[in-house]
């Protein structure tokens, strides 16, 4: 099995889309259904290579989630990339300040998503 990637998205369809693409590329995908679940998954899988995180989610949204992660797990070094339907500048600025490496706009082309993940986790 390849590197572990945590996918946090409240939409099952979106999670499946990402999972399908990444599993086909040889990664192990762990799905989380909202920010809280995302944090739980991050704690449970410290060896994860990447977190792919939706912005708009119930309970704990993506940006709050990564802000919380940075606060509570300051030594966390896993790169985070946001997955978002709208590239709203202010939101993304906040995400970036909270430590997100970048963002991928939905809908995305599968090959571009895989290329992005490869680059983020350092696979050529």
């Amino acid at each position, binding site marked *: 099995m390849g590197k572990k990637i945590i996918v946090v998205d409240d939409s099952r369809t979106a999670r499946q889309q990402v999972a399908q693409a990444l599993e086909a590329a040889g990664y192990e995908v762990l799905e989380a259904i909202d920010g809280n679940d995302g944090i739980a998954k991050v704690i449970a899988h410290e060896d994860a290579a990447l977190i792919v995180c939706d912005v708009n989610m119930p309970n704990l949204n993506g940006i709050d989630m990564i802000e919380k992660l940075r606060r509570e797990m300051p030594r966390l070094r896993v*790169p985070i*990339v946001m997955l978002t339907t709208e*590239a*709203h*500048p202010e939101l*993304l*600025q906040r995400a*970036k300040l909270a430590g997100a*490496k*970048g*963002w*991928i*706009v939905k809908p*995305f*082309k599968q090959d*571009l*998503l895989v*290329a*992005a993940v490869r*680059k*983020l986790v350092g696979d050529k």
Partner: protein
Amino acid sequence: MISRLLTFLILPPHISAFERNYLARMNRIARVFFLAHAPLLAGVAYLCHTGVLKALALTCLMLSGPMVAPLAFENPRHITRVFGVAAMGLGALLVHFGQGPMQIEMHFYFFVLLGLLVVFADPVVILIAAATVVLHHLILFATLPPSLFNYQASIWSVAVHAVFVLFESAAAVWVSRTFFDSVLGLEHVVEARTSELQRQTTSLRLMLDNVGQGFVTCDLRGVLSTERSASFDRWFGAISPEMRIGDCLRTLDETAAQELEMGLEQLADDVLPVELLLTQLPSRIANHSLALDFDYKPIYTDNALSHVLVIVSDVTYRLERERAESEAKEMLAIFEAAVHDRAGFVDFMKEASALVAAATAPTTPMETVKRHVHTLKGACGLLQLTSMVTFCHELEERLAEATELPLAEEVRLVSRWSAFSTKFTHIFGRLEEVLHVSRAELADLLKAVEEGAASEVVAERLKQWTLEPTAVRLERFAEQARGMARRLNKGAVEVRVEHNGVRLPRAAWAPFWSSFSHVVRNAIDHGLELPGERLAHRKPPAGRVSLSTVVEGDDVVIGIVDDGRGINWSEVRARAVERGISVRTSDELSLALFEDGLTTLATPTHDSGRGVGLGAVRAICERMGGRVQIQTTLGQSTRVEIRIPRHHAA
């Protein structure tokens, strides 16, 4: 061979500015050098007792050439050629006035001068000088030998001198030409290249000034290059040095400007792939008067992304044209519909306006709002008002998750509809209601009058005429069903109408008919199979649908039968269970079919599939005191029968 020799000896005619400068300087130095000969030769004459005054006079005569030449010739090369002759003349004077024991040594001076003449970088100067020496020797050997030799020299001495001059001249010619080619001529080549570059730049500029697209490059901080096409300036105004692309865009669209800036920041971060990030940069920027499409191409320097080429196209006119075309098409559809069936169109406009009003009323619950929008979409679809259908479809998508109607959407819906109805009134004014009476009905009544029917009977018949024949409605649905079947590739569906002369009050029944269109749509879209599937089940390829109205006692029975695939109750049950609807009895199950939001279609289409339609029918039937019944045989047919009291309370 000869021509190659000539091209070697003779310089190309063009004199570059560099060469001209160089020769002017050399010529000045040469003149000073020549002038120095006057005292020198006078001194030699004095020492050799050969006549100081004569020496001065002859030297001045010889110097007149170099002194006058710059005035006589504009071409600096001509001047140097005069210098070639004069130099040898001065050599001859030195030999002449140096008569005595040193006279032969004075001949060295010819070789010195020939060597010095190389500085003019012109083989012709050397050749002229050499020829001058040869002529000088030959002439004086014949006429005044003491001017050359201090002994009894033979012609062979002259020949030996000539051979030495020839050797040095050959070398001097070669050196001066090489000097020209590698120094003065090189400048010539550079000049040619520069002017070629200039020409290319000019044509590139011409292209950039006249191309319709905007081209500009910016670095990853967004700083724009100064080279760009004129269109870019036209859209974004003059660009000052160090100006950033985000600031240009800001005048048109603040959000897009921010998006672009953040996108460039991402590119500079080099964390995500360039291809992905370029697709995420803003692709269209529009304000009320201008719509621009943006395309981006990466520019790499030393294998790293350094700049982005931004290609901007003005799509304002294209978008406007597309909009105008679709509007024109829609107008045609309105026109056709209104001409074909005025009353129907009036109904449509009334119904649609009512739906918009109801959907945007503050107290309307969200489920109902969605249903109204869906009904509006259906009604517009039947008349092929594509832009309204698209609008409603998109609105439905946006409202799918909403729990209340956002103000922005409300405003959009209202303004959209009022724009549409204004357009409509522009063409038709206010449509008057029209009574539909067939010739048969008229003949029938005439006959009754002629046969002396009682006035109450005639009055009752006439009153009936103010009611609307269901024939009009059913024919209209038949037409729509055929059109829809064609759109959905279901072939030439055969639609039969049996109206049985039923007439119904128009206003009271209008809501029912508009909801009935859902039933018709369902029959075509869900009921009928595609021709291939039908053939596989040994059915004729085109489906059959029949629409009927009949009066049974106090009830009007409206029926629609299709010979399609029937309703798959187990699928309905599964969907119902998924949504937590009770389906224990078969009655409950058929009720579930009418539940709002229940659909067996995976992806909603423009035509049907949101599960809203049948719910609307049931709601209206119940309000009118009626009921809906469904009979279906899997794989064979579905019959929907609606029974409503003729004089219902609503």
